């Protein structure tokens, strides 16, 4: 076992160090940092935009690049949070609180260094966690039948609802709507074509990229254009980048706590970097001996959330690689990317495609190393990029989206559909309905239907099969417990308080 682990890692590094994979890793992390720095465009929209392009890459290159964008964005987002008080990315909103205060006190350098070191440490640890826990988990998952899968996905969706921002009821409704959108197209079991209104382009279903780009990309642009453009950029001296002994002493525990917290939250469905960073900040504020300094430039307030968001970005690959189930919107896109390449995400990936699995994991470590080496020297460039006004940015984003979506099936229809989802997404934004649960439902819809059908077919229509099988039953009980907990009045109030912080 021990030996196999190192053999596997060696295989992974051998693959990841091939120059083409290194190149795409570099492209990925650079792009990720770039969009992390630029406000108004996040990893979901970027990965959705680039999905059509990955048709032409090898599966490993595609996944390495997309993964790089995802965790690269966590690094980039912190830079602007600290220097200009603008979170480039949702997961670095809390970094603004103390990071910017540090910068105002002339400690921008230590703040940036803390963010980079915290992210790097968390990235390394959670990469090892993925490498250690994913294969045994995949082994367990291999024994899952349709009943277990259905209940697992049910649990996943419930967790996504619980962890979604805002109203629980709306999140449930969004998941249901997503599940329904997922069913559009040809029904796998009966061959019947559903909900297409005779439009033949819909026979294959609504394209995932089309939906994601509409809901996240187009609606984001429309929303940004409605807000006033008020971005000020002050380029100030960054100062020394090294941490003093005292600072280092204060930081390391916070980084450890952030890493642990983020790694766990990343695995949970609906979790991910955003929630991890908020949670880690709140936790750190409670346990730190310097909690009175929080909000006025406490270095722990930078270290903990930055470690947590990167750890979560990494560990959210675990459910994807072992169960084939996405834990957040970006992972849902990764599933899309794997399917484009003809890889069925699930427990078999580890055993059938070891070079893909281990190569991806090794590339994450390499990518993290690249980020920490590249990021600090490149800070000047990233700041200058911030001065690019949004009026140049959004036509450029439009070009990417339009070409990307058009090329999906080489027809105008997908662009039309994306535009419609953009309008729908904008309406949802106005009504404060989070689109992330919808995306998860959309991906899981067909899989859930398929597994439910098979489970009930095997049991001859007896729904109790879902609770007589122990693994399936435990997922359902866990889901039920989650629901009861969040709907309990006391906790509900607490939950709302937690989410108010990020408004």
């Amino acid at each position, binding site marked *: 076992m021990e030996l196999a682990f190192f053999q596997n890692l060696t295989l992974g590094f051998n693959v990841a160090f091939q120059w083409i994979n290194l190149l795409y890793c570099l492209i990925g992390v650079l792009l990720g940092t770039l969009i992390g720095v630029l406000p108004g465009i996040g990893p979901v929209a970027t990965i959705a935009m680039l999905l059509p392009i990955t048709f032409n890459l090898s599966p490993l290159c595609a996944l390495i690049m997309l993964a790089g964008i995802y965790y690269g964005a966590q690094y980039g987002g912190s830079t602007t949070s600290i220097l200009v008080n603008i979170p480039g990315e949702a997961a670095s909103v809390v970094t603004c609180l103390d990071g910017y205060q540090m910068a105002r006190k002339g400690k921008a350098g230590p703040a940036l260094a803390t963010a980079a070191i915290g992210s790097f440490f968390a990235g390394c640890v959670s990469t090892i966690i993925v490498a250690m826990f994913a294969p045994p988990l995949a082994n367990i998952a291999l024994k899952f039948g349709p009943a277990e899968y259905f209940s697992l996905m049910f649990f996943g969706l419930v967790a996504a609802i619980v962890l979604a921002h805002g109203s629980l009821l709306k999140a449930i409704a969004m998941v249901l709507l997503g*599940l329904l959108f997922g069913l559009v197209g040809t029904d796998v*079991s*009966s061959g019947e074509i559903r909900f297409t209104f005779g439009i033949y382009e819909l026979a294959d279903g609504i394209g995932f990229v089309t939906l994601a780009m509409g809901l996240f990309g187009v609606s984001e642009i429309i929303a940004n254009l*409605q807000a006033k453009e008020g971005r000020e950029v002050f380029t100030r001296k960054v100062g020394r980048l090294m941490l003093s002994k005292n600072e280092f002493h204060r930081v390391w525990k916070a980084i450890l706590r952030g890493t642990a917290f983020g790694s766990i939250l990343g695995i949970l469905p609906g979790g991910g970097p955003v929630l991890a960073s908020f949670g880690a900040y709140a936790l750190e504020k409670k346990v730190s001996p310097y909690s009175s300094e929080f909000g006025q430039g406490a270095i722990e307030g930078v270290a903990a959330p930055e470690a947590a968001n990167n750890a979560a970005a990494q560990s959210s690959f675990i459910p994807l690689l072992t169960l084939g189930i996405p834990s957040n919107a970006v992972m849902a896109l990764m599933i899309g990317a794997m399917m484009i390449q003809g890889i069925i995400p699930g427990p078999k990936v580890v055993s059938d495609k070891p070079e893909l699995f281990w190569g991806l994991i090794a590339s994450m470590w390499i990518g993290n190393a690249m980020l920490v080496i590249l990021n600090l020297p490149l800070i000047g460039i990233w700041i200058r990029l911030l001065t690019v006004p949004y009026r140049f940015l959004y036509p450029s984003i439009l*070009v990417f989206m339009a*070409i990307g979506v058009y*090329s999906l099936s080489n027809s105008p229809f997908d662009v039309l559909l994306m535009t419609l989802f953009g309008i729908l997404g904008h309406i949802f934004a106005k009504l404060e309905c989070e689109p992330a649960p919808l995306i998860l439902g959309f991906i899981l819809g067909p899989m859930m239907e398929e597994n439910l059908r098979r489970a009930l077919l095997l049991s001859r229509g007896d729904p109790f099969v879902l609770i007589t099988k122990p693994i399936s039953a435990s997922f359902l009980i866990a889901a039920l417990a989650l629901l009861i907990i969040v709907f309990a009045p006391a906790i509900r109030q607490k939950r709302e308080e937690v989410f108010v912080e990020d408004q």
Partner: protein
Amino acid sequence: MFRIHNPKEFGSGLIFIFFGIFFALISLNYRLGTAARMGPGYFPLMLSIFLSLMGGIILLRSLITKGEGIMRIKFQPLIFITLSLLLFAYLLPLLGLVLALGIMIITSVFAGLKFHFKEVLFLCVLLIIFAVFVFVKGLGLPFLLWPKFLN
């Protein structure tokens, strides 16, 4: 006089009910089957009934709770962004990538923020050159570059 105190919830409820009923009605056209042998209509009908129920609960709750009003939708960005994308998509097969992109970028400019003529021109040229080299020459996407009637 009947007044809505929580318009965001009220609106959300309405949308969910609409989609719920919409999908439910279509599902009824498909064979339902039994739990043991589900037809294509079974699962979607179940989901859409739940969705309508959720919508109903959200709607009812909106009548007894209070909340902020919905921010007014500014139609200018909405219309011009939508229009620019659609123009691109439907003109591309006729006019080719270069012109379709140009038209899209120029249309998108009207979506809101201030623009100077020279900037727009510069942006157009830059983005078109980039798109032609990266997407057509580099990635080999099968796009027409110039209008059909010129070829």
